[in-house]
């Protein structure tokens, strides 16, 4: 009986205009998107390697420790998955003068977009008259006259719609992947393929949610004309409205201080205030050193100092003590002021995290948000990857500033004890470079579990609701 029921659903869909229209739209769109995004990805790869060359040249010729932090910064290279899922990798950098506002106005199109908007729409179109349509045609009465339990009919309808959606999705995606993989410069790893498989499973769950919404709505309404209106109403709210409202709602419920304000405050603490404190401490420490080594009190020109440092070991010891005192003073000033600034930044971060968490929680009412989070996290283009990137950047920072920089400065001082290691060009082409590696699949899957659970939860609840509504349905 199962087979007959599902086969009937499949056949009915296969022959319909809506299935054809949906399939064609989906196919064309996936292929075009894959083509355009692959071109975009390759362009980014080129630019990335050009940037690396530029940086190498700089590091050999002009690198100096005082300002190296402004130049040598961890940067996210393009990930191969970007040819399918753009996620948060779009170039919307509000902290740079030359921003690229096009993606703000016109969000970029990718697989996530196609699944969330188009596939959900197709799912609704396939199912909005699942029950009411059969009632209108009179076939529902006939079916039930055969002694079929209603539960089987609902389940067959859901399964039929789900399978019907999965088919075009797999075919279109396969065509899109062919476009991507045929480009010799795109290199997909096993983890990427696994992630893609999981995204496909999630897409099927997402499409099923909307198919179930269609079945539920159609078994509440007597006529298909009202059923499509209600379905579209629900769809609009869930897909187009709830996710967009959520961050705004969260920012009222859980406010965070403005970034500009905090940046101003910390800049003052670590700049003007730091200089004041540093000067004060330096004068104080130097006075102490001067008491021990009165020789430093003499006023000498730079050349004379150099000569005496080279000739007189006692003067050299005094000179180095004075230098160490100044260094100590500035280190102390930096430590005190940085601690204050860090406190402010920590507070900001905590509040921002609370707000982001709340926004995320609110938006997860919408299956669209669930799928977006899941797909971006699985493909290393979402918030999870941002955290992963920050971790890698921290490790690199340690390798550079804790290990490499002191070593290099020591080597410099050994060669030229009076030279300024901070403002002299040093060849840093041997510096540890930031190397981005994608997070392992395990962590990504763990991050994707809550939204996936939400999608499955929606499926179960909606199926139960559809079943109840269908049991109460008057088939005449």
């Amino acid at each position, binding site marked *: 009986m199962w087979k007959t029921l599902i086969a009937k659903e499949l056949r009915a869909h296969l022959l319909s205009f809506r299935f054809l229209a949906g399939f064609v739209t989906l196919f064309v769109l996936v292929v075009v998107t894959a083509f355009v995004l692959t071109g975009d990805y390759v362009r980014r790869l080129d630019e990335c390697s050009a940037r690396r060359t530029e940086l190498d040249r700089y590091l050999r010729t002009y690198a100096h420790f005082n*300002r190296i932090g402004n130049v040598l910064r961890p940067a996210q290279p393009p990930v191969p998955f970007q040819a399918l899922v753009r996620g948060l990798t779009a170039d919307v950098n509000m902290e740079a003068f030359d921003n690229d506002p096009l993606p703000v106005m016109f969000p970029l199109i990718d697989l996530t977009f196609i699944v969330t908007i188009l596939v959900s729409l197709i799912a609704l179109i396939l199912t909005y008259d699942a029950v009411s349509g059969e009632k209108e045609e009179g076939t529902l009465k006939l079916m039930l006259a055969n002694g079929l339990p209603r539960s089987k009919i609902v389940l067959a309808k859901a399964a039929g719609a789900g399978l019907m959606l999965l088919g075009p999705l797999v075919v279109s995606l396969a065509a899109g992947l062919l476009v991507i993989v045929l480009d010799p410069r795109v290199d997909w790893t096993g983890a990427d393929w696994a992630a893609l498989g999981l995204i496909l499973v999630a897409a099927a769950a997402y499409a099923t949610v909307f198919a179930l919404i269609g079945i539920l709505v159609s078994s509440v309404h007597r006529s298909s004309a009202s059923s499509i209106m209600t379905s579209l109403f629900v769809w609009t709210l869930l897909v187009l409205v709830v996710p967009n409202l959520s*961050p705004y709602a969260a920012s009222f419920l859980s406010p965070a201080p403005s970034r500009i304000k905090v940046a101003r405050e910390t800049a003052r603490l670590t700049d003007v205030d730091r200089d004041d404190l540093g000067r004060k401490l330096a004068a104080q420490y130097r006075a102490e050193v001067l008491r021990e080594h009165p020789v430093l009190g003499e006023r000498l020109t730079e050349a004379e100092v150099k000569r005496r440092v080279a000739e007189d070991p006692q003067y050299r010891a005094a000179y180095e003590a004075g230098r160490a005192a100044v260094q100590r003073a500035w280190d102390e000033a930096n430590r005190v002021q940085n601690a204050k600034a860090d406190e402010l930044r920590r507070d900001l971060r905590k509040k921002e995290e609370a707000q*982001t968490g709340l926004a995320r929680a609110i938006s997860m009412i919408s299956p669209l948000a669930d799928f977006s989070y899941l797909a971006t996290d699985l493909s290393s283009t979402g918030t999870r990857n941002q955290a992963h990137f920050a971790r890698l950047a921290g490790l690199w920072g340690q390798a550079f500033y804790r290990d490499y920089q002191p070593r290099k400065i020591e080597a410099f001082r050994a060669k030229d004890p009076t030279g300024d290691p901070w403002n002299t060009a040093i060849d840093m082409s041997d510096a540890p470079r930031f190397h981005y590696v994608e997070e392992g699949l395990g962590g990504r899957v763990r991050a994707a579990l809550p939204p996936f659970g939400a999608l499955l939860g929606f499926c179960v609840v909606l199926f139960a609701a559809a079943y109840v509504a269908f049991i109460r349905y008057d088939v005449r």
Partner: protein
Amino acid sequence: MIGTVARKEIVSNILSYKFTVVLLLMALLLAASLFIMHRDFAERTADYQVIRPAPGAPTAVVPPNPLSIFAKGLENAMTRSFEIGVIGVDVRAGQSSGNVIFSFFPAPDFLYIVRVVLSLVALLLGFDQISSERERGTLKLMLSGPVSRAEVLLGKWLGNFASLAAPFLLVTALGTAAMLFDADIRFSAGQLGRFALILALALLYMAFFLSLGMLVSALTRRSATSVIALLFVWALLVFVLPNLGTLVARQFVATPSVQALNEKRAQTWTREILLGIAEGGGLGERMKTISREEDRMEEDFRLKFERLVRLARNINRLSPAAGFLDAATGIAGTGIDEEIRLKAEVIRYKNSIIDPVIADLLAGKRDPAYPAFTYRYRPLGEVFASGAMFDAAWLAAFNILAFALAYAGFARADAR
């Protein structure tokens, strides 16, 4: 006769379930959007009070634009603070950049509601105008009376447009009026005028989708077919074309990425400072060189980016949704052109004060005073001349075309 048909349409709309859903959706979303964007604006205004530059500070900050409640556009980029320093313009973004969820989904402003939801609503009003009357058999009855097909079509269009426009204008007017009670928001007469223009554009935009719905309903025999075809066309026009268009434009115009530009800037200024220290003296000259170099890079980027925007805009014009968005954000003063212009003004401001800024830094002056930055939004004439006029005319042309085709389709239609 047209009046009778229009009246009949309005009455039957009021009685229908469809119209109830449409009305509910419209009222709910417009009210929610206005409320939320109003709160957002109030927060940004409070923010501005904190970050507004002290008198004499070399900082350019534009106060929040009240019209951004309706058309957020690039408002977040425009209200950043630009601090002029010796090594260039230091940019700081506002609050919303901390919460990444903001960057996942577009802002639900008035423009978004009109562009995405109300276009769908207009389609849903129009999709079964002809086909359902045919299915019910009332089309035959109507045409057997002394009324021409053109009159029927026009009457239907007018009746449905009125039932769409009246609640839309009512809810918007109520929402806006509620906002006028807030003492913190003051719309100038000019801004209200601009808002009226945006409303007119919105009506034109919705009218297009209504005509499109009637066109498809005249061409198809069944309402079910017509709604499915229309939903795909809608998704294509509203979502796919504008977003794909910008991506396609990028294939043809190569612009450096923001990241690349940032790295280049950092390399330039650190190099110049280093050379200034190493070669001694002339640090002021080096700083001027930095400023010039940055301007050169900025101009290079801007020229390329403007070309990209032009191409993307022209491709996007295939979709009325993109044209509507461009024109409306342009009128509101939150569009792409406005942001480019603001940045050009900031550069000009920087160049007008960079010499004293450098001199004061080298002299170790603690609290120097500089002239303040003021920004005037583009006058409407310029907005219209630079594309909004074309977009509006294009929308009207879309409208007329859809209606004419609908007439042609209806004239050929079999009424049985």
